[in-house]
Structure formats: C-alpha cells, structure tokens
C-alpha cells in the first residue's frame, strides 16, 4: 500500500468511528448498579427496602394535590401518571421552544407549576421537587434512555460534551479522565464507575437522602476543586444532556440506590 493510500484508509476508518478513542464503546457501557455490592443491590431491588420509594410515594400524593392560584393538580391535566408520564424522564433534558434551550425534568416541573398551577417554584433539592421528579422518573423504570432525539438539541449536546472533556479545577481533571479512562479502577475504596445517569433522582447512602444528577455533578466538580455551577445553570443542564445521550439505550432504574 502506498503511503497516501494508507492515510486515506486511516481517514476512512476514523469516519466510520466518529467516537474518540477515549469514549466507552456501546457494548462496554455499565450502569453504576453493576459496580455495587450485593447488599446495596438488594436495597435497590426491593421496593420496600429502597428508601427512594418514600419520595416516590410522596410524589404520587403530590401528583393529585391541587396547588397554586389556579387550584389545579398535575393529574387534572396529565391524568394517570402511569400512562401519561411513561418514558418522559427517559427523554429529559428536553428542548423547550419558548426558552430556546434544554430544560431538565426538575425545571419542567417548575415551569408547569408557574404556567399552569400558578404556584410558587420549588427549590432545587427540596423534598417536594425531588418527590415529584422521583415519581415521574419511576414511570420510566425499565425503559431505554432516549434523550437527545430532538435535532434542536445538537448544539447543546456538543457544549455538554465539550465540558465533559474540559480539564478544570486545581486538580486539573476532566470528567473523561476518570469516567471514560479509569472506570474499571478504584479511587480509595470506591469504584470510579462510568458516570452513567441511569437512576436519577437517586438515593445515595453517602447523602442519606435522595438527590438529583445536578447535586451529583456539583459533588464531582467540587471534588476536582473547581467552582461548582449553581443548580439549574446552563452548563449543568448541558452536561446532564450529554450524559443522557452518552447513556442512550441504557435502562432507567429510578429511583436507584448508590453507595
């Protein structure tokens, strides 16, 4: 083979694999669940042992509770969540046409509260917002993640991806340096994992409570000693969106349990 021809073949090969060499091949992706001990798996597998179900039950009660000046419940428009919310969490963050940017499930709940219930916004990580999110996310349990279908999302996915690969903080680490390159290793006693967002909102034993993906991301960002973005910041939403597209096709586990 002549030299220029070798380059042409190599270029073709690259075109056929648009992923960077660092990225995890689809067939090697693993949920954080697979890194857990049998004991922790047992907590997640049993709905009467999974503390995340406390929030799901709260969310179920909130779903039918009339709220705000409009005196409307979620159920008044959306009916039975088992049918109407099936697969919804699996495709969030989704593009909002009015805002012209992606919004997370938490932000969607608050937008609906403002527009249709005329109720005060729920604070990030508050019991009620987590409860509604967990209840809606549970309706997608067992379904494949499908976020990122909307072509309008492409530039935001690209931004999130850029953030995932950008080194930052005093430790000068990017997400990819651990979660693509070293997911099969340990950091002290803990599995590094691939950072696949399959079970949010999730109950972390470390937190002793349920928390959102944004809380988890802020924890990691603080861990590399960078200034964490505020809850709801466009950067966090874009990162969440990229992570969901990165986990596309993986099974939703919400509410998951993690160490």
């Amino acid at each position, binding site marked *: 083979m002549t030299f220029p021809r070798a380059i042409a073949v190599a270029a073709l090969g690259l075109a056929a694999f648009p992923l960077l060499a660092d990225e995890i091949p689809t067939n090697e992706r693993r949920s954080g669940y697979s890194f857990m001990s049998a004991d922790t798996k047992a*907590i997640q597998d*049993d*709905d*009467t*042992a999974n*503390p995340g*179900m*406390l929030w799901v*039950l*709260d969310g179920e*009660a909130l779903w039918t509770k009339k709220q705000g000046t409009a005196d409307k419940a979620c159920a008044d428009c959306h009916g039975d969540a088992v049918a109407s919310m099936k697969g919804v969490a699996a495709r969030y963050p989704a593009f909002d046409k009015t805002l012209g940017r992606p919004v997370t499930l938490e932000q969607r709940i608050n937008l609906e509260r403002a527009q249709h219930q005329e109720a005060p916004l729920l604070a990030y990580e508050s019991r009620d917002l987590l409860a509604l999110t967990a209840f809606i996310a549970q309706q997608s349990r067992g379904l494949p993640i499908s976020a990122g279908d909307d072509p309008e999302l492409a530039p935001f996915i690209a931004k999130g991806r850029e953030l995932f690969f950008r080194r930052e903080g005093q430790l000068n680490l990017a997400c990819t340096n651990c979660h693509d390159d070293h997911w099969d290793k340990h950091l002290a006693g803990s599995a590094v994992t691939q950072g696949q967002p399959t079970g949010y909102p999730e109950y972390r*034993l470390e937190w*002793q*409570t349920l928390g959102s993906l944004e809380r988890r991301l802020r924890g990691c960002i603080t861990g590399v000693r960078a200034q964490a973005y505020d809850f709801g910041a466009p950067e966090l939403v874009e990162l969440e969106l990229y992570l969901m597209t990165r986990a596309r096709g993986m099974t939703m586990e919400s509410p998951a349990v993690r160490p």
Partner: protein
Amino acid sequence: MASALINVPRKARRGDVIEIKALMSHIMESGYRHTAAGDLVPRDIITSFACRYNGKEIFRADFFPAIAANPFMSFFTVAQESGKFEFEWIGDKGFSETASASITVE
C-alpha cells in the same frame, strides 16, 4: 407524606419462618453536627422501635445517633396465626409513628 414502608408476607403456612421488613422515613440528625455559624444542630433521632404480632411484642430495638437516616429493620419470626403486625417508632421532639400489616396463616 409517606412515612413507612412495610414488607410482611401476605400469606404463610403455620410454622413458617417469615421475614419482616420495616423502613421508616426519618432524618436521624445525630446531635453532633454544627451549622456553618457554629451552632449545634439539636439531636433528632428515633429512639425506639417495636413490633407486635397480635398484640404480643415480638421485636424491640433501641436506636442511637450513629444509625443512618431512614432506618431499615429486618427480622424474622414464626408464622403462628392469622392476624396483624403492628409497628411503632418513637423518637425525639415527640416523634411517634405507627403502621400495620396483615397476614393470613393457613
């Protein structure tokens, strides 16, 4: 607000060893933590848990500050007769919750 998740087998044969599971929603604030301003966060924990099977106490536990939030208890008993399991949690700040579950023993 949902507070307890109980798991008792709905049916059992007489003499079967059955597992009872009870999860209670609670922050279990240890009383050892401080706020950013340096004030002590007062202790707020469950102090005792009990389970009665048809009125007779079959399990009791005292809880302490080192126990995690949303305490989960799992224990075993022998299915003797149809009836009711009653659970009771008592704690700081007047905390008191109850729950119950029925079982049919054949």
